[in-house]
């Protein structure tokens, strides 16, 4: 309902909305143009072809887009904690997380999802994959689990804002940064970084591990074979951790008293 209110409020400035939706699409599109430009200069990146990189790009882009559409507003919460306007939300008879997520709900963020899906479809057309039922099933599972992992990271980051209101940018390095990281093949990064992404912040489960399976490539060294199917499990664990952090955050919340 809150989201609906924000959609109505956005529609008040119709021309501005059209422009934001279009540019939101373009901004992410230009992001992909960079990869196109790179492949204009080289044939492969880290041993991956263009279509394979496009698959990585499309899967993480879609997952991140869905998470950003639903949870992207959480970034602004730091400001609400700081100026005390979060109190208004606490008075209303609705879950706080839902309210904060719907706060300033921006439909224009749909542009990002659309762009991710577009690249994904393009990649699937170009790719020469020996499809099996498992691989076909794995694709939507990967997209959804990825979206949940990103969303959980956003909630986790927002929970931290209860204590340090100014730290919103740290979350960005895991969400936006993770999204950028996952657009490229794991082979180009230092192995310590890849390990960090598998075991510390489980971003690799967003797309790297399942996508490598779809492409028929081996998982990075030291990662067990079954890990390629573990994304839903990892997503569930991430949700649990984020939920606990969010509760702890609310409990520690002290209004500014103004």
């Amino acid at each position, binding site marked *: 309902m809150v989201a609906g209110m924000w959609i109505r409020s956005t529609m*008040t*400035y119709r*021309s*501005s*909305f*059209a*422009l*934001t939706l279009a*540019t*939101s699409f*373009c*901004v992410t599109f*230009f*992001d992909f*143009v*960079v990869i196109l*430009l*790179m492949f*204009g*200069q*080289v*044939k*492969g*990146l*880290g041993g991956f072809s263009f279509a394979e990189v496009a698959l990585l790009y499309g899967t993480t882009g879609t997952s991140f887009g869905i998470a950003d559409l639903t949870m992207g507003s959480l970034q602004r919460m730091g400001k609400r904690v700081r100026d005390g306007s979060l109190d208004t939300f606490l008075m209303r008879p609705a879950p706080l997380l839902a309210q904060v997520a719907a706060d300033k709900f921006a439909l224009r963020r749909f542009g990002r999802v659309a762009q991710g899906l577009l690249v994904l479809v393009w990649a699937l057309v170009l790719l020469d994959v020996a499809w099996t039922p498992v691989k076909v099933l794995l694709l939507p599972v990967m997209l959804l689990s990825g979206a949940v992992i990103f969303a959980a990271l956003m909630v986790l980051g927002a929970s931290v804002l209860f204590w*340090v*209101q*100014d*730290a*919103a*940018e*740290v979350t*960005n*390095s895991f969400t936006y*940064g993770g999204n*950028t*990281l996952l657009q*490229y093949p794991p082979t*180009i*990064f*230092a192995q310590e*970084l890849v390990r960090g992404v598998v075991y510390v912040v489980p971003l690799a489960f967003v797309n790297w591990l399942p996508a490598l399976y779809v492409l028929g490539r081996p998982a990075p060294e030291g990662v067990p074979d079954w890990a390629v199917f573990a994304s839903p499990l990892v997503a569930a664990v991430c949700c649990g951790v984020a939920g606990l952090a969010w509760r702890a955050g609310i409990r520690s919340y002290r209004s500014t008293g103004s």
Partner: protein
Amino acid sequence: MRLYATVAAGGFRRHATYRVATVAGVFTNTVFGFILSYTYIALWDERPQLGGYSMDDALAYVWIGQALITVCGLMGGGFEEELIERIRTGDIAVDLYRPADLQTWWFSANLGRSAYQLLGRGVVPMAVGALVFDFTLPQGPGTWLAFLVAVALGATVSFAIWYLVAMSAFWLLDGQGVVQVAWLGGLFFSGMLLPLNVFPGALGELARVLPWASMLQVPADVYLGKYAGGRELAGAYAFQGCWALVLFGAGRAAQAAATRKVVVQGG
């Protein structure tokens, strides 16, 4: 003059109070620096000397970009949101009654902000990058100085662009659409994602003459010593200076038109 110096100092101090935000920003810039560095390494491994840069040049370019994101407002000027909000709510009327010029006032405040961001968010990521990766360092203090001049000019062009964007809010009320377009320009045409001299053909030529080139590409090339001799360096400064003048002028014209409009509304 004294007034504007005070405003600039205020801008510096104001941002210096957000220490946690600075640390968070440094962390983010460093993380992105790492990710970009590895992609550039993969790219330059396949194509050495791409865009006339060596691998060391390309890596230096990555970290210069991370250092200048907030200084030169590559992804947002850092002040326009506040200014747009003041225009939207009508608080701007109070600002217009002050015995100071609106544009110069905000420019001074933003100059202070840029100076703080250079120290607060520019130095550390660059130092971390230099420790982890081998990248090109300027040949001497002269190059550093030339680089700082280019950065100052870049920050000025950035201010002029974002000020113009904010002025559009007088007509559009909600400035978000225009902000996004400017954001797109900053992100793509400043060369933050990929150096502009790697862009092919006509797209590259276009990108290199647009104002956004002054914000990262030109300072980075000054740093890397790509402008041989004083004449070429002067040419680069002239490019930045011209854009600064044109955009400042446009911002001033928009301000004048908007002020007339505000008076009409208030009457």
